[in-house]
């Protein structure tokens, strides 16, 4: 048996953080189902961090599943592929849950579509060889990832090929596969780990080859014992190892996972690359495997539709561009007491006003909350209790940052490292005065003068 050259000396946890209500039991045991093909899909040209994809001046009338419909708009960018076969309509404007107002290509699917079983087999099922991978050249892997339009599928949607691009100044020795899924309610990554563990391992090994890494560590929280077991079995005989991490929010954040799993601390304002680590989500790893081994781009992803506000919480395999309304309908529809639909999980997600918004590559879940889930309270003044400081996993002073942002005192905001905030929401969750700390810090980051 091969032995990983890098043991994982991390102590399996990080300081501060919170233990919110998990709510994972709602959808954890629901196997991934295939969403019935929607009547219309909207493919936004900007589903990632970076430059928007550029559709050609004249769009083809027919879209073929897996064929590129908009090329990358720069180096930090990703192409967009048709997720179904059908007729291309015109370009419309959509407002994504994060507030971006972007162009989207409308596609009306043809009546004949692959059966759900075929789709499942194409994206998740079948065998994923974890051996014979050396026949793939590192450059070819990175190129396949770039062409497939793979972006971080954990939510931030950073183009993956940028992470894998070899940089002699910053060599990479570990690929860390992030299977923490610390966000409450969401179980999409969990189901992927259960149903396609070999695909994840294969993708991670390919990513390691592309980045020149000597070790692969898969980090999973202890509340997912079955996923740990499945991944251990899949990783047997490879350089990949599985590391169990304490169940704590936000364990899935890069600056928490890397120290917890590997014992390496990322400097403030730095990236995992600075300590020789590339972090990819389990969904991203699977997408890499699919792009390299099956030569298929990102056309589908697994989305959890959950919360007490839907009748039947589910994990769905959906084409990119499917409207939220279809996903909610597939999960039994909204219950009477549903009051808020959140794109993503309750901690970091964005409330959605209009269910016609499309699923993007970064959509990990749709959480529907009821009146009793929401803690609606009147905002009061900060009493300097320091609870936000106690829980901030990055060691920031959220109250200082938020109030500096509110009053536009930029030198204070900068001195207290406002840009280091990753908006995990621990501070706002714990604030007894119900101050919208994260929103204020977000605003501050957006308004902070350059330089």
């Amino acid at each position: 048996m091969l032995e990983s050259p890098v043991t994982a000396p991390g102590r399996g946890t990080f300081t501060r953080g919170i233990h919110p209500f998990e709510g994972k039991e709602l959808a954890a045991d629901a196997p991934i189902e295939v969403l019935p093909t929607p009547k219309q899909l909207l493919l936004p040209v900007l589903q990632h961090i970076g430059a928007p994809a550029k559709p050609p001046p004249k769009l083809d009338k027919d879209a073929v599943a897996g064929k590129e419909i908009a090329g990358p708009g720069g180096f930090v960018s990703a192409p967009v592929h048709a997720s179904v076969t059908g007729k291309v309509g015109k370009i419309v404007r959509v407002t994504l849950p994060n507030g971006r107002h972007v162009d989207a290509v409308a596609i009306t699917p043809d009546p004949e579509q692959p059966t759900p079983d075929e789709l499942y087999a194409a994206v998740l099922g079948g065998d994923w060889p974890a051996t014979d991978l050396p026949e793939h050249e590192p450059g070819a892997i990175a190129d396949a990832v770039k062409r497939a339009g793979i972006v971080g599928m954990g939510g931030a949607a950073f183009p993956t090929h940028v992470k894998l691009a070899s940089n002699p100044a910053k060599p990479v020795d570990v690929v860390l596969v992030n299977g923490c899924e610390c966000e409450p309610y969401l179980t999409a990554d969990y189901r992927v780990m259960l149903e396609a563990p070999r695909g994840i391992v294969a993708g991670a090994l390919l990513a390691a080859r592309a980045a020149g890494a000597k070790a692969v560590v898969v980090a999973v929280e202890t509340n997912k014992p079955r996923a740990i077991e499945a991944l251990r079995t899949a990783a047997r005989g490879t350089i990949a190892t599985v590391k169990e991490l304490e169940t704590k929010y936000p364990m899935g954040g890069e600056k928490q996972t890397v120290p917890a799993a590997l014992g390496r601390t990322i400097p403030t304002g730095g990236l995992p690359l600075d300590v020789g680590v590339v972090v990819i989500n389990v969904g991203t790893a699977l997408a890499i495997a699919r792009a390299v081994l099956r030569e298929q781009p990102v056309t589908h992803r697994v989305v959890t539709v959950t919360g007490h506000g839907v009748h039947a919480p589910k994990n769905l395999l959906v084409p990119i561009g499917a409207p939220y309304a279809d996903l909610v309908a597939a999960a039994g529809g909204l219950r009477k007491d549903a009051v808020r639909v959140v794109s993503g999980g309750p901690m970091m997600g964005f409330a959605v006003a209009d269910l016609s918004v499309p699923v993007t590559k970064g959509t990990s879940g749709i959480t529907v909350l009821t009146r009793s889930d929401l803690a609606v309270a009147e905002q009061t003044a900060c009493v300097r209790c320091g609870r936000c400081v106690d829980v901030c996993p990055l060691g920031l002073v959220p109250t200082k940052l938020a109030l500096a942002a509110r009053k536009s005192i930029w030198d204070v905001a900068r001195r207290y490292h406002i840009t280091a905030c990753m908006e995990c929401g621990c501070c706002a969750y714990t604030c007894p005065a119900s101050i919208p700390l994260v929103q204020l810090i977000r605003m501050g980051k957006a308004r902070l003068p350059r330089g």
Partner: protein
Amino acid sequence: MSAITITLLLAAFTLLAMAVVMGTILGVANKVFHVPVDVRLERVAASLPGANCGACDYVGCGEYAEAILVKGEAITKCPVGGPAVASAVGEIMGVSVEEAFPVRPVVHCAATTAQRLKQTPYHGEQTCNAANLVGGIQGCVYGCLGLGDCVAVCDYDAIHMIDGVAVIDYIKCIGCGACVKACPRNIISQVPFKADRILAVQCANKDFGKEVQEVCEVGCTGCKSCARANPDLISVVDNLPVFDYTKYDPRMSLQVIQDKCRRESMVWLGKPTPTELALAANETMPARQEAEFKTTVDQTEWRG
């Protein structure tokens, strides 16, 4: 002489000697280090309004006056004073002024809360800057959010939220441009007012046709009717009519343009007309409530 008198005289002479020496030094220094001050500076500063609003991009009127003299800064940069101040400064400086107009802000959104569609309740931080980063508060992603960041920065009480949209009071407005800088949606622009009332486009929605109608009852759909009525004056950029105010002339037949607008985006803005003032004069004001300064303590029944 007693010891006290000697001490007093000693102190008095010492001080006198010091006064003479220092006075001489100061007198000489005044001659040697004399800085000639431009006599015009005081006059230019005096003819500026003294509002110190910063609209000219200088810290205050004094600094702007200095910039005019030293750096040769343009004399038409004071939007508050407008043509009167420009010509007064021009006289002092000996430059002739081309025709200048007061610059005033225009809010490019006219939709009241009721006219904006697809709204969802918003409970977050009640400022436009914060709300602008949240999607789905209202269907229109370009229009006024109505939370009043512009009202907060106005030092002249000249901009108010009326029915959820920012409305400028052109009687009070001095054109300092603070609201223009405060608006996170960038829907306030500075426009030269060549007459008391000018025609302006009150919409910022860059989408077209149906997409606009879905989110707003009054917004511009980009139909280009106005541009066809006067192609010289109006060009349509990103589905929005844009006035070329350099070509704008109050004597043009402008009413035609407004009549062409099928929505309510082409609006006359500026000081109220005599008719409007007359109408307002006829309105009966609500009866004034006089305070009653009697204490309630006497009637309080104390128990327990």
